[in-house]
């Protein structure tokens, strides 16, 4: 049957271009993406912590965190590790090549809850990619937030992402940055060495009720970081974390990211720690 009426198809990807890219470290590439349609590029609204589905026809579609901040509209930034079928082909793409995206999806960070609060951002490894969005959002709207602490741990200096950007931040007076690597074999590393949790000892005394923490990192990291945050007496619902899951739709239909009756794609990917304790297996 020929369907003549206009049907909204939420699975239909939109054409976009790779504007520019560079390799951050081995197998980790940074992409600037822009909708092909200029109006769409400028009207595309999202929140820090949301994600998009990126499509390469014939290869497939996968979710990726948005690493840019909506306070700098027009371009979407993605940080992507080459680790599967889709990313293998994506890494062969050149600037100005056509790709497809749809979204944004997910709830994003609860920014209203963060306003006026001291912000503690804790990132491990690739987890820094979605947190970079909220980091720059806070910096771009600096007077809406209290003090800002940014902790980031990578495995080694060669796996430390966004080194240039993040080391520049150290010059600012309105953010305190703590960087660490698990191991340093280079001898050139000037920051901390050890797991990300050891950075907590550098924090000044905080008024726990006035702190809002955001966390993202590998599954193993959450438990240890959460313990530190609870030790500081930060309320459970003021600890936000963003989670990764397999997804095929992004709109709560395909089932893969389900936990109990919540879907990571629509009810998440950002959950506060109180919510996490309500659902077994969430972290």
């Amino acid at each position, binding site marked *: *049957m020929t*369907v003549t009426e206009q*049907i*909204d*198809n*939420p*699975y*239909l*990807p939109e*054409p976009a271009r790779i504007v520019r890219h560079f390799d951050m470290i081995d197998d980790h590439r940074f992409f600037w993406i822009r909708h092909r349609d200029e109006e769409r590029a400028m009207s595309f609204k999202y929140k820090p912590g949301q994600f998009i589905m990126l*499509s390469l*026809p*014939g*290869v*497939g*579609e*996968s979710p990726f965190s948005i690493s840019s901040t909506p306070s700098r509209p027009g371009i979407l930034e993605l940080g992507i*590790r080459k*680790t*599967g079928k*889709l*990313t293998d082909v994506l890494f062969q793409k050149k600037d100005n090549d056509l790709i*497809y995206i749809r979204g944004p999806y997910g709830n994003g960070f609860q920014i209203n809850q963060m306003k006026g609060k001291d912000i503690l951002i804790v990132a491990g490894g690739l987890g820094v990619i979605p947190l970079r969005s909220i980091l720059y959002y806070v910096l771009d709207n600096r007077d809406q937030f209290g003090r800002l602490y940014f902790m980031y741990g990578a495995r080694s200096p060669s796996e430390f992402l966004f080194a240039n950007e993040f080391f520049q931040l150290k010059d600012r007076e309105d953010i305190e940055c703590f960087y660490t690597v698990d191991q340093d074999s280079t001898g050139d590393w000037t920051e901390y060495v050890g797991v990300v949790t050891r950075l907590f000892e550098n924090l000044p005394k905080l008024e726990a009720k006035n702190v809002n923490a955001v966390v993202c990192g590998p*599954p193993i990291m959450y438990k240890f970081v959460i313990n530190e945050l609870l030790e500081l007496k930060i309320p459970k619902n003021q600890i936000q974390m963003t989670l*990764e*899951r*397999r997804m*095929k*739709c992004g*709109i*709560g*239909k*395909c*089932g*893969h990211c*389900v936990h*109990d*009756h919540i879907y990571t794609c629509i009810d998440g990917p950002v959950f506060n720690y109180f919510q996490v304790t309500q659902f*077994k*297996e969430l972290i």
Partner: protein
Amino acid sequence: MRILKMQSKFLDVFLESLEKFGVLYGPIKKNSVLTYEKVDHIKDLELWGEHPMIPLKKMFHPKQFDMFRFDKDGITPDYSTIEKRVVLGVHPCDIHGILRLDDLFLEEPQDPYYAQARKNTAIIGFSCLPTENSFCKSTDTDIVEEGFDLFFVKLKDIFLVWVGSSMGYDMIYEREEYFDDDVSHEDIMEYIEWRNKRDEMFRTDFPFRNMPDIMELSHESEVWRYFADKCLSCGQCTMVCPTCNCFNVVDVFDVTNEAAGRRTRTWDSCMFVDYSLVAGGHNFRGDREDRLKLWYTHKLKSYGDEYGKPGCIGCGRCVDTCPVDINVLTVSKALIAGEVPKE
């Protein structure tokens, strides 16, 4: 709701007349398996016996179909599977199954493929008698009050016909001469008697009311390990379950053209080992035990939290199908007993 009666002898010719409203589908034996298929001859229909192995969901959420066509010019939605259809012989449990799927697929943003199929398909329900493994009375899904255009209840010489939609009225209107408004006291008594007899035929009765709490409280139960050790991860339970909706999306290039192809959607199963596997190799549900818990949580608890009713509609297909006797009943019973079943 308007209820009419029809003499049994008019059934075949009436069903044939419904072709006017769309392509007819109904339960037909194919390779000795009963399944919803296109109807060539009304006589092929098996309307009164067992239920089809694969539930009605396949008409709205097909096992496999193309969502999009793509080529060098872009990506275009493919709605070619959408046609005007009339599905005959749908039992109450299957109608309840579709109403459950409606909650999910028609919630905004709607799934356009499912929504179009629903909009273009009429459902003609038929009464049934309990099969050996059905327990729809326990799940409160043995009777339907919505979700059909017409519903036929078979009595001795007549059908009582419930008219459930405007299209149902149109269908009746086409063949008014077969229908009679005059439902007598005798007919009513016969219907009551039929219901009582049917109620008594259920061999399985199970109190599902407490299952949400029991699921919540039994997360660490040894029962899960016991079933996980038996489970084959074959996914048959999910394929035959009327309320399983999970799907996978896969792109396929055309054989003859390396720039063109289609994005296909196929049923997926949370029993499969790669169901929660993400790039980089982390598997959030690598353990069979976790996958079983997910399925039973969905059927017995979380659907209730979300939509106010359990995901199970009591058709008994998982009981019929699982090769190692893991199903809604055996799992629920073991959890309530708090111990693994005795072999």
